[in-house]
C-alpha cells in the first residue's frame, strides 16, 4: 500500500456536481426548491413536496447539532486504515436537513445528541472537500 490517497472519489456529475464543486470552495451547498422553498439533501431530480425540478443552491451556515455517530475501528478499506479510529457523525443542520460528516477530533469524548457542531472542509487529493464537523 502506498501513502497515496486512494479514497473512493465521487463521480461529481449531474445533480451531484454543484454539491461537490462547492466543497472545493469550502461551502456546504444544499439544493433548494424554487417551486415551494423546501430544501433537500442529498440532491434529487424532483421535489417530493411540489414535484418541481426547478431548483437553486443555498450555502448552509455549517452550524448544527449532533444527531448520532459511529466510531469505526475496523479497516473496511485500505485508504482509511491509517485514519482509524475515526468517527462518522450525522448532524442536524440549522437549515433543517441532516448531513453526514467526519468528526474533526478522531474519537470524540462524551458525545451526546444535541451537542453543537460547526462544519468545515478539508481538501481531498481529488480537489473536493471532506465535510468535517468540529465540536464548538
Amino acid at each position, binding site marked *: 500500500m502506498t501513502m497515496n490517497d486512494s*479514497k*473512493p*472519489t*465521487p*463521480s461529481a456529475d449531474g445533480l*451531484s456536481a454543484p*454539491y461537490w464543486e462547492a466543497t472545493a470552495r469550502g461551502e456546504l451547498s444544499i439544493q433548494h426548491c424554487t417551486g415551494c422553498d423546501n430544501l433537500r*439533501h*442529498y440532491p434529487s431530480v424532483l421535489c417530493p413536496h411540489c414535484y418541481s425540478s426547478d431548483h437553486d443552491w443555498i450555502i448552509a451556515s455549517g452550524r448544527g447539532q449532533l*444527531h*448520532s*455517530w*459511529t*466510531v*469505526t*475501528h*475496523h479497516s*473496511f*478499506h485500505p485508504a*482509511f486504515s491509517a*485514519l482509524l479510529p*475515526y468517527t*462518522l457523525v*450525522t448532524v442536524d443542520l440549522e437549515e433543517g*436537513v*441532516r*448531513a*453526514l*460528516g*467526519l468528526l474533526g477530533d478522531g474519537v470524540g469524548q462524551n458525545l*451526546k*445528541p444535541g451537542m453543537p457542531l460547526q462544519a468545515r472542509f478539508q481538501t*481531498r487529493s481529488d480537489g*473536493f472537500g*471532506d*465535510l468535517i464537523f468540529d465540536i464548538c
Partner: protein
Amino acid sequence: MKVRPKGSVTGIGETAYSRGSQISSLEYQLQASLMAIADAGLSPKDIDGVIPIGLTGAPAEEFITNLGIEDLRYSALTPMGGASGIAAIQTAMAVIEAGICKHVLIPSGRNVSSGASAGVRIHQMPQFHYITEYEYPLGAIAPAQLYAPMARRHMELYGTTSRQLAEVAVAVRTHALLNDNALMTKPMTIADHQASRMISDPFRLFDCSLESDGGAALIVSAADRARDMRTHPVDVLGIAEGHPDSPSAITHRPDMTRLGLAKAAPVAFEMAGVSHADIDVAEIYDCFTWVVLCQIEDMGFCAKGEGGAFVENGRLSLQGSLPTNTHGGLLSQAHMLGMNHIVELVRQLRHEGGKAQVKDATTGLVTGYGDLGDGAIAIMSRGMR
C-alpha cells in the same frame, strides 16, 4: 382458520453452508432449486415461474437452460436485499392468484469467498448510489458503519445497552449449536460478546453476521393445490413489504430507529387475522443484533424503545416466550440473505425442526431487512391436509 390462504410454501431446499467454497453462486442456486423441487414432489418441468433473489443472482434464463424448463410463464426480481425473499413470496402469491403460474421457484445462492467484501459489493448496487456518491468518499464503507448510527441513536434515546445486544447474539448462537448446518459451533456467553473487538461502535464483532457460501430455495404453490402435494403444507396467511422513509440514505431518515417493517407488520398481521400472542416461533432477519431488537419493536411485540428489555432473560431462547432464529440466523448459522430464515420457519411449521423444534408450533413469522431499511414479513401457519 378464518383467513383463506392465498399461497403455500410447498418445497424448501438448502445446501450445506461453508466458507471458502469453490462452488459458484449459480451452481449453489441450481443445487438448492433441485432440492426444493424434489422436496415439493415436483419435476423441474412443473416450474412455471422464477423469481431469483439478489441483484447478483442468476437471471431466469439460467434456470430455463439448466433445469430444462419448457414453458416459463413469469419471471421477476425483487431487489430489496435481505427482504427480497419474502417480497418474492408476495410476488409469487400474486401471480398464482392471478392464474399466471402454478409453481414458482425462488432460488438464492452466493459465493462471497471468491468475490469482494460486503463493503465493496454494496457500492456496485444501483440502490446504493446516493451512499456511494456522498458517503463512501468520507469513509462510510460497509453496512456495519451505515447501520451503527441507527443503533447508537436508539441507545441514546432509550438507554439500550451493548449487553442487551449481546442477549440477541447469545440466544441465536445457542440455537446454532443445535443445527448441524450452522457455521458457528462454539458456545457464546454475554462476556464473550462483550470481549469481542469493536468493529464500528456500538457494533462489536459478535453483533455482526457471517459472510458465507451456499444456496437456499423455495417453491410457492396455490394453497388449494398444496393440500395434495408431497409435504405438509405451510400456508402464508399474511404478507407485506414496507419501505422506510428516506429509503436511499439512512442519514436523512426522520426517525432513524424505525424501519420499513414498521409499515409492513400491521398489514401482515391484519391480513393473517392473528395476534402477537399467536406467534409460536419467529425467524427475524439478523444482519446485526440491534436490527433484531428494532424489528421486534417495529412489529409491535413491545413499544418503541423497549426492545432492549424485551430481549433480556432469555425471551428469544427456545424456552422463552418468543423463540427466535431457531436455526442460528445470519449471526451464527450462515448469511443466506434471509432465505435460510424462511426455510427454517417452514421446517418448524412442518414439525421438522429437529433438536430446535418449538413444540407444537402452528403459527410463526419470518422477517426480512435489507438495502438500508426495506422490510418484509410473512406470517405462516401449519396447513390442514
